[in-house]
């Protein structure tokens, strides 16, 4: 196997006859921070659950640390940190008991680091997990996931349900932790600013497919949104490939194109446009363009 720490091969998953994931291929190299984006319920958690071996795929294979997910041993699992969506943990345990359990079930445990986080967030060790706020549970979950000094850290929508302050605190801690070591991180979220702050490579899931899988800066370069104004009526077809989205009015076409290059510009020029201007796009704009429902998505790999 290559140096990909996380690898997904043609992953297909059906739930009650509904295709949720349709042939996902993904590789996350060592040391990469990969942001997996997608709207709620699009299948981000399903991918993570299949990777962790908590769910069976309908078809395809997933690999973590070079091993098939369903064949991960206890030792392999000890090298993987996981912060689950919702931070359920074990609700009826006291924090201290949960920490003791995690400690006894881990291969490595960095007590100094753990104490540092506990003090930083003033997590009450004597309280039951269910009595903690969502933000505190998120912090505890991250602390537990990081104290084992994992080689791979999987964060499944970790900031879901957190208020702005708690989200900021969580992310600052996460960034601090990430920057300490060159560990591989898979970070799923639907909050784009979070991913933009952390990730150096992103994937966008839409309609069961990974429509984008590239570096963040590359994505911004590759996908262009253009406003083309024609002197008379706009043409019916621009004969461009990889159109993500197209809006047409009498003389104007607003088009979002993947993998925009000189050739595509030349094709547009053959229609003699009066003007062709680029509309700047934020990650949020890119995400919306790529995940709009009911429209054909084009891969940007």
């Amino acid at each position, binding site marked *: 196997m290559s140096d990909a720490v996380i690898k997904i091969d043609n992953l297909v998953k059906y739930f009650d006859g509904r295709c949720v994931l349709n042939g996902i291929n993904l590789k996350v190299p060592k040391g990469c921070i990969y942001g997996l984006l997608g709207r709620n319920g699009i299948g981000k958690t399903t991918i993570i659950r299949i990777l962790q071996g*908590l769910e*069976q795929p309908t078809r395809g294979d997933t690999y973590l640390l070079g091993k098939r997910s369903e064949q991960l*041993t206890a030792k392999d*699992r000890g090298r*993987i940190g996981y912060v689950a969506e919702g931070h*359920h943990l074990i609700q009826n345990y006291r924090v201290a008991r949960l920490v003791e*359990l995690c400690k006894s*079930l881990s291969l490595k445990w960095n007590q100094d680091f753990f104490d540092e986080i506990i003090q930083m967030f003033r997590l009450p060790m004597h309280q039951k997990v269910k009595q903690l706020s969502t933000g505190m549970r998120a912090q505890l979950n991250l602390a537990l996931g990081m104290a*084992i000094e994992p080689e791979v850290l999987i964060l499944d929508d970790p900031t879901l349900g957190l208020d702005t302050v708690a989200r900021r605190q969580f992310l600052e801690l996460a960034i601090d932790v990430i920057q300490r070591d060159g560990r591989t991180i898979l970070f799923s979220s639907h909050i784009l600013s979070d991913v933009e702050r952390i990730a150096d490579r992103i994937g966008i899931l839409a309609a069961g497919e990974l429509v984008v899988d590239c570096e963040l800066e590359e994505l911004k370069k590759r996908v262009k949104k253009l406003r083309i104004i024609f002197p008379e009526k706009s043409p019916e077809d621009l004969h461009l490939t990889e159109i993500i989205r197209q809006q047409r009015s009498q003389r104007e076409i607003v088009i979002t194109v993947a993998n925009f290059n000189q050739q595509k510009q030349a094709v547009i020029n053959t229609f003699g446009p009066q003007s062709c201007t680029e509309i700047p796009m934020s990650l949020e704009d890119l995400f919306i363009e790529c995940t709009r429902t009911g429209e054909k998505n084009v891969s940007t790999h």
Partner: protein
Amino acid sequence: MLALIKREIEDNILFFIIAAIIAIVFTVIPIYSVMTYEMEKPPIGIPMSMYGIFWLLFLFVPLICTAFGATQMYADRSKKISTFLATMATTRKRILTAKIITGLLWICVVIVPLAAADAILLRVYPLIVPADTSLLVKLFITLFLICLACYCLGLQMGWNTNKFFSILGSLAVTPILMSIIIVKGFGIETAAILLLLAIASTLRIWQKFMTTPL
């Protein structure tokens, strides 16, 4: 593995306290009844209280075993404990094995002191407790197997996230298994049936636990 077993015991400490109480009560009563029996009357046979104790044991202990298995698995499923544990440095196999070992420990906590006490009584008071060793062995093997079968069936019932059906199932299984003993008695046949049932239930819960999404 030890951490998982410890966790199971701590989570189900109430059941272990019940097991200890049963063990103490059902060990003390026969010892007391045999000792007082010898003092009052000439040694002529097994005191009636001994029969009563065994029937009580066969009635209640399997029922509690079923409830233990069902509670253990139901709590696990409803609180998503295995989902959390499975993401740590362990495997599904270990998680389920820890559960089953805890179940076996529970059965041993109840049966071993009682079996030991009865074996001692048999040696010390052979005339009052004239039952031969083989009958005692058969009796405790049957009790162990019925408890094991009930526990494994309880695990299966607890897998069902519907609390009502879990309780209903627990109540229904024990009388059905008891009727096997009533019809067949304490023999090899009963032991074989109970053993098969225990193995089948264990294999079924094993298959479910290994393949179902957590």
